[in-house]
């Protein structure tokens, strides 16, 4: 179950429980996310995997009635400690959502720069370099470099999603959370994002929620299977998909339920 001890630890949840009011939707989940790896979270709809993801950057507490117990350790510090500012924290943990969410009133450039500007004023040249760097890492630079000042909503769905990746990367986060990032994309757009995951894990720790089992198998190092709010099984991806230890995991990945 546990990842190898030599992997440098970055993000860890300790007995994390997420609730809406009195209803727990994630129960007592402890996971280690080793540095510079991709961890996929799979499971049927409503199993709590997205809620779990939203606990990792304290977005869950913004939902009506949302609160948590347990700990989330980022580089050893509990992000739910009262001394931690949730707003500052979210600048260290980037997030990309299910549907592309470019800011419609902003240009491509302003979208990518948004997370940098909110951190305070920066020199023009520095901003330019950061925007270009983020767009290159998101594999979008070549497609948009001649129309940085154009509206972001004119881009295709796949391009918009890579723009959102670039926007999340621009503030140089340590962790990248992806919530079903390819759910609304066509196969070409999906492939782009998957290739990105491979390249980005050399610099970032990635946690991705996905409905697509093949996708989890293709891009992740570790996979966790959620069911009804419980983490049923967690292991190296190739082991989980070939030799699952729990019967329920096997039933799910062979398509017998869910």
């Amino acid at each position, binding site marked *: 179950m546990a990842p190898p001890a030599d992997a440098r630890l970055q993000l860890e949840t300790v007995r994390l429980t997420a609730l809406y009011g009195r209803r727990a939707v994630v129960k007592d989940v402890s996971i280690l996310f080793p540095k510079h790896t991709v961890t996929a979270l799979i499971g049927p709809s409503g199993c709590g995997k997205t809620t779990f993801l939203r606990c990792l950057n304290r977005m869950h507490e913004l939902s009506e009635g949302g609160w948590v117990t347990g700990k989330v350790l980022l580089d050893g510090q509990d992000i739910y400690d009262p001394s931690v500012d949730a707003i500052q924290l979210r600048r260290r943990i980037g997030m990309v959502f299910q549907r592309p969410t470019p800011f419609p*009133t902003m240009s491509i450039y302003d979208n990518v720069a948004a997370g940098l500007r909110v951190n305070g004023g920066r020199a023009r040249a520095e901003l330019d370099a950061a925007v270009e760097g983020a767009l290159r890492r998101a594999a979008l630079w070549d497609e948009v470099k001649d129309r940085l000042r154009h509206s972001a909503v004119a881009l295709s769905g796949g391009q918009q999603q890579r723009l959102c990746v670039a926007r999340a990367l621009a503030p140089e986060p340590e962790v990248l959370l992806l919530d079903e990032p390819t759910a609304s994309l066509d196969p070409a757009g999906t492939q782009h994002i998957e290739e990105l995951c491979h390249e980005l894990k050399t610099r970032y720790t990635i946690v991705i929620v996905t409905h697509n089992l093949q996708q989890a198998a293709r891009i992740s190092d570790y996979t966790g299977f959620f069911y009804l709010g419980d983490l049923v099984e967690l292991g190296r991806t190739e082991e989980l998909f070939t030799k699952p230890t729990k019967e329920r995991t096997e039933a799910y990945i062979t398509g017998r339920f869910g």
Partner: protein
Amino acid sequence: MSVRRLRRRLVSGLMTTLVGMLSFVAVLALLVILGYLVAKGASSLDWSFFVQNPVPAGQAGGGVANAIVGTVIIVGLAALIGLPIGIGTGLYLAEYGSGRLGWIVRFVADVLNGTPSIVVGIFAWTWLVRPMGHFSALAGSVALAALMVPMIARTTEEMVRLVPHALREAALALGYPRWRTSLRVVARTALAGILTSCLVGVARIAGETAPLLFTALGNLNFSTSVLQPMQTLSLQVFTYATGPFDEWHRLAWAAALVLMGLVLLLSLAARWMLRSRYGAAR
């Protein structure tokens, strides 16, 4: 099977004709009003009508320059007072108004929205005209602003609510503080809609007469002092239309036409803005 199909087509055709006719009646009313205004008023419209002030009763000629300028001043001042309060309230209701206070504000706004405008005029008279000792354009503007605030607040709220929740979350996930998310992302995305609702609101109050009757009062002379009585187009129409002279009736039609044109222009501007929403980036 074919009988059924025939019946279905028959009913469909009948209903289409029916709703078509009903909407024609609705449009017809507007066309008749507009047509009648043009027929009665257009002949009196010339350059001097726009640039001259009224002449004493019984004399021919004269214009409504004072009323046009007065309308712009009173409505402009009302917008200056009412729009910031209305927009602010609307933003508050949409972004933070889920609690009890939000419910109360929303309820009060809805009640105010349904208040007859003459009642608002009475309050402006009681609280401004009487203490000041005389009628004034300012009192008129305050009355119009009071009419405007609940309207703008509710429409602004609707427009801000149209902004997808996902955009809010995206901004918050980037490390935007809540207030900055509201202003930089949510309000800006809804900006075209908010400005449209402002224009519609201004157009609505531009034609109000009742709340001005005992606040701005009206003035046959040219005046730009907001502390003095001032003429507006709606008051001019009221005075002239209820007066005894044929010459006045003629001028009333022309003034009504000008007022209608002004409101039409504002509505067209609002339409145009709504169409270009979401389209523009800097």
